[in-house]
């Protein structure tokens, strides 16, 4: 890793932690620089503004997810429906980790930012919507595969996938509000029962 990549990576990692554990509005560039141990001039070399930084944080986290636990949960070697259980487990243990470490459940970074920013920043809203759409597409591909394999009856997989994402995000929001990640384990497995029927 070159020193330049290292600096950018440090800024991204610090900002991700701060945005996730607090909020976008609550965190300033100055404290991100202090946390990442970089000069302000260096910060602006990589990111013209806090908005640009947040956009990069979203891309970075979405990329980590896609190649990390989302890829692990939506493993092509697992039976399609079983992948949903793995996704619930992944959400639970990931959320539990911050409760174990800091006593507070952080929730979903994308969900947190969507709630905070959707009425305030159209560009960020669109980016978050794209991230959610990609997640929805993972569910949809899994459902289509399950239907093709005969494991599930034919359904409106586009809307069922959207419903599954909405259910998961909703559970995470409630669990965060209760500060009880266990709610994900209690309610999560029922994600498999969701289905939106095809209409003519």
């Amino acid at each position, binding site marked *: 890793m070159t020193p330049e990549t290292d600096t950018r990576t440090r800024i991204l990692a610090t900002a991700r932690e701060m945005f996730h554990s607090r909020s976008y509005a609550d965190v300033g560039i100055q404290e991100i620089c202090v946390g990442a141990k970089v000069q302000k001039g260096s910060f602006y070399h990589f990111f013209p503004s806090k908005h640009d930084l947040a956009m990069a944080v979203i891309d970075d986290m979405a990329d980590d997810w896609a190649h*990390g*636990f989302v890829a692990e949960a939506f493993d092509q070697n697992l039976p399609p429906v079983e992948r949903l259980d793995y996704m619930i487990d992944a959400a639970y*243990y990931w959320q*539990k*980790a911050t409760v*174990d*470490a800091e006593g507070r459940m952080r929730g979903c970074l994308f969900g947190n930012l969507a709630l905070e920013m959707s009425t305030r920043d159209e560009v960020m809203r669109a980016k978050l919507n794209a991230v959610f759409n990609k997640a929805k597409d993972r569910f949809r591909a899994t459902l289509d595969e399950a239907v093709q394999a005969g494991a599930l009856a034919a359904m409106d997989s586009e809307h069922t996938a959207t419903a599954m994402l909405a259910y998961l995000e909703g559970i995470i929001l409630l669990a965060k509000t209760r500060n009880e990640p266990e709610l994900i384990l209690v309610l999560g497995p029922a994600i498999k029962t969701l289905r939106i029927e095809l209409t003519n």
Partner: protein
Amino acid sequence: MESQQTPNSSNQTLDARGLNCPLPILRTKKALNALHSGDTLKVVSTDPGSLKDMVAFCSQTGNTLLSSQQAGSDYEFFIRKA
């Protein structure tokens, strides 16, 4: 948590070193699925969160955490499949 009786053999070893939460748990779940009831899985991880995660995972799934110990920067777990 440290067990007095660390098993000295396992049916399979899972190397989860370098992986962060929740990947060690997901890999453990997959590895256990491939084993038979009563088999023992050894998991080696470097994620400190694994200590609490393995306890929660075994309690959640009914598998038995036979031992849990730190060896240098590694954490070693022996799990008996239910």
